[in-house]
């Protein structure tokens, strides 16, 4: 697991932080809790749960990253069932396609387009479930089609081709830069105006549960 557990942000073949020193977090304090920070407005169709939930959880992911799949399948699904649906957590998906993954942006385009037809969650589910296959073949459309009706697929295809969904992806990427996200998946928790990025690579359901329960007790 060590060495493959996370995907660092690569730029020109070398590890690099995308951007530093933007206003929402103090410079050089990637992981420090930041008081009075507010999560940037999410595209509602890319978020799950009640916006008035006491905790907001932003997850920066790359659909082609294996540890993002692992986090989604082993941790986020349980979070959705136990915290999002009961109204305790507002879960926001943020796209962070990495340059090292050739199909990550295209997959993000399909997921964002699916959000426009109200099928974001289903498409995310299928993208992660079939990640190994489309990562090898590049046939993302085939994978996505399994989760949509032909009519929905037609709309999604049109949106992807129009390039309209790229703005939403770029917005997420710039939010990630603001938080100095250095790898995927990165989870950022906002509770009572306090923003805390969780230690990269160390999040699992049982520890996350302990943390969320601690915040909810406050």
């Amino acid at each position, binding site marked *: *697991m*060590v*060495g493959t*557990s*996370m*995907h*660092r942000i690569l730029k020109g073949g070398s*590890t690099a932080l995308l951007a530093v020193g933007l206003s929402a977090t103090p410079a050089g*304090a*990637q*992981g*420090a*809790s930041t008081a009075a920070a507010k999560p940037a407005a999410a595209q509602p169709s890319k978020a799950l749960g009640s916006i008035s939930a006491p905790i907001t959880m932003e997850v920066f992911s790359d659909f082609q990253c294996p540890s993002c799949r692992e986090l989604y399948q082993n941790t986020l699904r349980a979070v959705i069932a136990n915290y999002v649906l009961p109204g305790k957590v507002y879960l926001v998906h943020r796209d962070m396609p990495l340059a090292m993954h050739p199909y990550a942006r295209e997959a993000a385009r399909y997921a964002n387009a699916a959000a426009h037809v109200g099928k974001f969650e289903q498409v995310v589910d299928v993208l992660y479930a079939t990640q190994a296959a489309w990562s090898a073949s590049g046939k993302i459309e085939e994978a996505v089609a399994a989760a949509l009706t032909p009519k929905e697929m037609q709309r999604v295809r049109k949106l992807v081709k129009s390039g309209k969904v790229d703005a939403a992806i770029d917005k997420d990427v710039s939010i990630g830069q603001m938080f100095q996200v*250095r*790898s995927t998946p990165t989870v950022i928790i906002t509770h009572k105006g306090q923003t*805390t*990025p*969780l*230690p*990269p*690579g*160390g*999040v*699992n359901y*049982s*520890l*996350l549960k*302990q*943390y969320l329960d*601690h*915040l909810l007790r406050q």
Partner: protein
Amino acid sequence: MSPVKFSSGRAVLLLTRCALGGVFLYAAWTKLSQPWALFAMSINAYQLLPEWSVTLLARTLPWAELALGALLIAGWALRMAATIASILLAGFFAVMLRSFLAGNTGIDCGCFGVGEALSGQTLLRDAALGMLSFGLTLAAFRENKNRADAPAAQPAAFAAGEAGETAK
């Protein structure tokens, strides 16, 4: 009671004790001021321990660091405290180096709470602290040996003095 000699060696020892103790107190404070689950996630990122021991370590290590820091600054049980600090820092260094060499640099160092990435800089800092602690351990043992030797030397000197007088 004879006055305690304040040599430059003692001053260096005191400064080293306070510096190292301060680092341990700060490390403990940064962890204890956050929910333990956050530190547990930092430990878990190293992918070395089963979950039960991650939890145990996250709950106990900050308190151990607090106690070590206090002992080092106070100078109580110095040999034991300095030895434990050296072993601890060597352990941290080994774990960090292993992850660093495996290319797992996206994770948190976990040294001073959440948010500091594992890097060459954090490794160098840990190595420097380890050497400082090792030096302190050696000095603490040496000072103890000197103290132990001193009472034995005194009666011998008295005896020599008496013998000298008798010879006159």
